[in-house]
């Protein structure tokens, strides 16, 4: 909230209106996606806490398959991050003050898939690394790179103008897809073809959910948690 009230408001004053006509609305929409990403990542930290407290063994003993377990964790992580970010999304909608109902519903669906995908990614990395310290570092670095190399804070044309390499990475970044769809749903910026970012998010969700299941299945047993 303070980022909207303070950073969003003041930073919008220093942005050239020819580059971004209304940076405040642009930033507020992007902030919701950035926060959703950070909240969904948290499920990985829970896995370490469960391993540390021996809850992991209990979960493994439940009469559910490994596949159901990881799928449930991904969806649970995504849902709770949505609940966490819900008030912020509400405030964002109020501040932005516009809505395209059908586009917004599609973007909301995409944000759900995005949150599940990020949770799946977090779980996959957590069970691959099995070290809370390394996970903490890697997630911090990933967060810094994924969020900054996306359109969450600035339009793609600006990123490309600053560096073609940054622009190339931002074009295929799931945070870019989610932010662009949310802005399209809230009428902040138009989107020529919403199908492309939507397909990008579905691919991201599918990859980390189903690859996550395989990796989880292989790495979950045998201890080695640090």
């Amino acid at each position, binding site marked *: 909230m*303070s*980022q909207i009230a*303070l*950073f969003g*408001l*003041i*930073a919008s*004053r*220093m*942005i*050239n*209106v020819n*580059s*971004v006509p209304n*940076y405040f609305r642009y930033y507020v929409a992007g902030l919701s996606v950035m926060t959703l990403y950070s909240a969904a990542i948290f499920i990985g930290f829970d896995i370490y806490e469960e391993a540390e407290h021996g809850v992991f063994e209990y979960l493994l003993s439940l009469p559910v398959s490994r596949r159901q377990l990881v799928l449930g964790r991904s969806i649970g992580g995504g849902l709770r991050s949505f609940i966490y970010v819900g008030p912020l999304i509400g405030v964002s909608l109020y501040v932005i003050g516009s809505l395209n109902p059908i586009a917004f519903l599609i973007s909301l669906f995409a944000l759900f898939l995005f949150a599940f995908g990020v949770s799946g990614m977090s779980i996959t990395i957590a069970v691959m690394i099995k070290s809370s*310290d*390394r996970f*903490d*570092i*890697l997630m*911090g*670095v990933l*967060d*810094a*790179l994924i969020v*900054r*190399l996306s359109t969450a*804070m*600035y339009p793609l044309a*600006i*990123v490309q*103008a*600053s*560096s073609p390499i*940054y622009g190339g990475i931002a074009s295929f970044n799931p945070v870019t897809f989610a932010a662009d769809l949310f802005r399209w749903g809230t009428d902040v910026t138009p989107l020529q073809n919403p199908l492309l970012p939507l397909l990008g998010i579905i691919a991201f969700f599918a990859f980390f959910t189903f690859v996550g299941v395989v990796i989880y299945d292989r790495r979950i047993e045998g201890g080695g948690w640090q």
Partner: protein
Amino acid sequence: MIKNVVHILEHDFRNFLRYKWWLVGLISMNLADLFIMAVVYNVMVSSAVTQSYRSYFDFFAPGLAVTGLFASAFMIGREINMERRREVHHYMLSLPMTRMELAIGRVLSGGLRGMVYMSPLLLTCFIFLGFPTIPQLFLILGVLLLLAFGISGLSIAIAVSTSSLEKFITARGLVYYTLFFCSSVFYPLSLIQQLGQDGKFPAVLVTLAEINPLSSASDMIRSFLLGYPAFSYTSILNVLAFSAVFTLGAAFAYIKLIERK
């Protein structure tokens, strides 16, 4: 007294260096802010900002060093809060030294750790913006050291006043966001003042931004390296007052509150 304080410094530095990879990760995150975010902002920031400060990258580099200093000097609070929750503070209180030596040692170590963490960021800033003269360098280091002690004191005061990690993290978040965003770290102070004059920003927050030690330290480095804004002795006084209040306040809070059950 000095010997006991040095023991505390050694203890806290050993803890600090135990997380060296974590620190490398944090520094890389800070550098990502500079080499990605600031580089992209360069393209879209209005000419009013770039005329005075050459580019947003040049404007932001000193601010980044100050935010790095703030984040790392604040880390001592988390450790002290953890010690309190895990009751390690009983061991600390049983050490053969006075409460004052212990408290001063903790505040100093928090500040010095902040300086160590911040140094690669400050060096990066000098490499890209140019090096200051020797007297300016000493003044920058002196002001940043005072700021680091003040931040360390602030974090210790919060750590001993909060009973759980959640409360500490919430208080830390409030302090972080208020001090970071109500300062000239990310944007020129003149923008905040302009918003205040237009009636779009509360006067109390404008005043906070003006006396904020993070604004004072960032603008002092900018005045030496970029020539703008003009150097003002008030900025040194701001940092000095902040440091004096929180260093002494934290030392007394640590002594009083750490013994509470």
